[in-house]
């Protein structure tokens, strides 16, 4: 009997969410210790006795038993969640409450509550994403540090600050009485979006690591969709966007493991199920009059997904969608993407002019793909020397070997192309 990939990690998020509800958010560390104990126990027992029939249920039972012990021993109810703390006063009430809390449907809700709690407005977006990865996705400090190419100390600090803020907030997010549901949902969507982008465009050279981040973001997005209040048109748009991008993941590297651009990708390797699911979600998102950035980005991804080749892409529509995106969010990176699309539609010279006219363009100076885009457009315009000079700058900014190899290859082609 074998266990599912990442079973421990997945179960970690479920158990921490349920136990934090039980012990109170100020006892998050205790919930994490109980989960750690359950895994240690599983590790020792399963090693010798083999994997149980239902590993998830076994882990849950181990966590439940440990939680029951703790509640029985710590009769001081105040230490726990006010609403649940009372149970510790009467011993007979402990077990039914715990049993109720570990029902699959209840655990699902608790995970969602934890997700909303992690996106506390007092926390930076970086801290929110790190907390979600740690608490809900079960990633350890070293794994988060590797995914974000940060030092472990930096992540450690980010997490402990975030957990302190959570503890100080005294209670988990309350869906029933929350007046700030809409802004909090926005923060949650944004955190999922950032997590996905880290996977999709992230600095980690490990394709497997990045694919996992995308997968986690999509799993969290699906959780939002399953829950009526958070299953909004913007949630559908976010999920559509993730599906349509994820469909292209398998073709982002070619057979020899090198990065390949949207223009070179073998489109037969795009995942048709994900494209279809993305289209379906995009249809669902077209409801109400709330047009978010997710809608526009998903629409752009859908235009790409529908095109059989770069030449057959409706670049004009893509430029128009980027224009609307820029109205909402005048980000230089979006403006750069618009310029690249414009170059496809009207030619490289127009693209170069658009890049020169980007507002706050100086913010792009450290962005590897800014120089890569300039280089590509110069090359298309026949200016090999300036293309090579831009490629050199891009290479010096590359974040990992994969990017460096890709840019070096393009740079070499400046001289070999006819």
């Amino acid at each position, binding site marked *: 009997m074998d266990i599912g990939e990442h079973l421990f*990690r997945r179960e970690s998020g479920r158990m921490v969410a349920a136990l934090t509800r039980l012990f109170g958010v100020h006892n998050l560390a205790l919930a994490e210790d109980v989960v750690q104990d359950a895994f240690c126990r599983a*590790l020792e027992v399963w090693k010798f006795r083999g994997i149980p029939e239902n590993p998830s249920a076994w882990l849950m039972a181990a966590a439940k038993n440990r939680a029951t012990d703790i509640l029985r021993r710590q009769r001081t109810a105040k230490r726990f969640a006010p609403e649940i703390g009372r149970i510790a006063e009467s011993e007979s009430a402990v077990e039914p409450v715990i049993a109720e809390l570990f029902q699959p449907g209840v655990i699902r809700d608790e995970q969602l509550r934890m997700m909303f709690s992690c996106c506390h407005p007092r926390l930076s977006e970086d801290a929110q994403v790190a907390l979600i990865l740690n608490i809900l996705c079960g990633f*350890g400090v070293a794994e988060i540090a590797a995914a974000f190419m940060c030092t472990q100390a930096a992540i450690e600090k980010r997490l402990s600050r975030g957990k302190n803020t959570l503890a100080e907030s005294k209670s988990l997010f309350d869906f029933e009485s929350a007046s700030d549901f809409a802004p909090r949902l926005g923060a949650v969507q944004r955190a999922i979006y950032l997590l996905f982008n880290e996977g999709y465009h992230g600095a980690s050279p490990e394709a497997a690591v990045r694919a996992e981040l995308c997968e986690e973001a999509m799993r969290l997005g699906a959780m939002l969709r399953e829950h009526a209040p958070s299953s909004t048109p913007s949630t559908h748009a976010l999920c559509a966007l993730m599906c349509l991008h994820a469909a292209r993941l398998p073709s982002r590297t070619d057979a020899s493991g090198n990065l390949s651009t949207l223009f070179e990708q073998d489109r037969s390797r795009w995942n048709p199920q994900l494209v279809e699911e993305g289209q379906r979600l995009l249809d669902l998102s077209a409801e109400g009059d709330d047009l978010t950035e997710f809608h526009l980005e998903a629409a752009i991804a859908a235009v790409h997904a529908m095109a059989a080749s770069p030449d057959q892409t409706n670049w004009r529509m893509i430029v128009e969608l980027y224009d609307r995106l820029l109205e909402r969010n005048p980000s230089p990176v979006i403006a750069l993407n618009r310029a690249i699309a414009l170059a496809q539609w009207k030619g490289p010279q127009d693209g170069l002019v658009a890049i020169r006219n980007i507002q706050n363009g100086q913010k792009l100076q450290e962005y590897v793909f800014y120089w890569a885009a300039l280089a590509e457009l110069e090359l298309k315009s026949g200016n090999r020397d300036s293309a090579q000079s831009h490629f050199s700058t891009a290479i010096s900014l590359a974040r990992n070997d994969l990017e460096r190899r890709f840019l070096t290859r393009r740079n070499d082609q400046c001289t070999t192309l006819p």
Partner: protein
Amino acid sequence: MSDFLYIYRMTPAAEKPSPEVMQQRMQKWMKWMNSLSEKGHLKERGHPLEQPGKVVRGSQKTVTDGPFAETKDVVGGFSIIAAKDLAEAAELAKGCPVLEGGGNVEVRQIMHMNV
């Protein structure tokens, strides 16, 4: 073929491994046990042992908590292995994942009634 007792001693880890790392450790262990089993060496998978224990000592029969604190390696479990001789049993123990965590495997032949 003779029977051998493997006694696994492990150093309690100072750091908290992530769930993924724990799962990988477990899968390594299963793989090793399965390979012993496939080759007919695994006579009894054995059992893990709860930590803490008690030690009863001397004619005074004093009972103390233990056997930790003074020894850094704690017995974590045991298995029974079938091997040609002590040398082979020791060789087979080299694949045990407990070694990677700084632990050790004590290999002892089990004495039998028949001479």
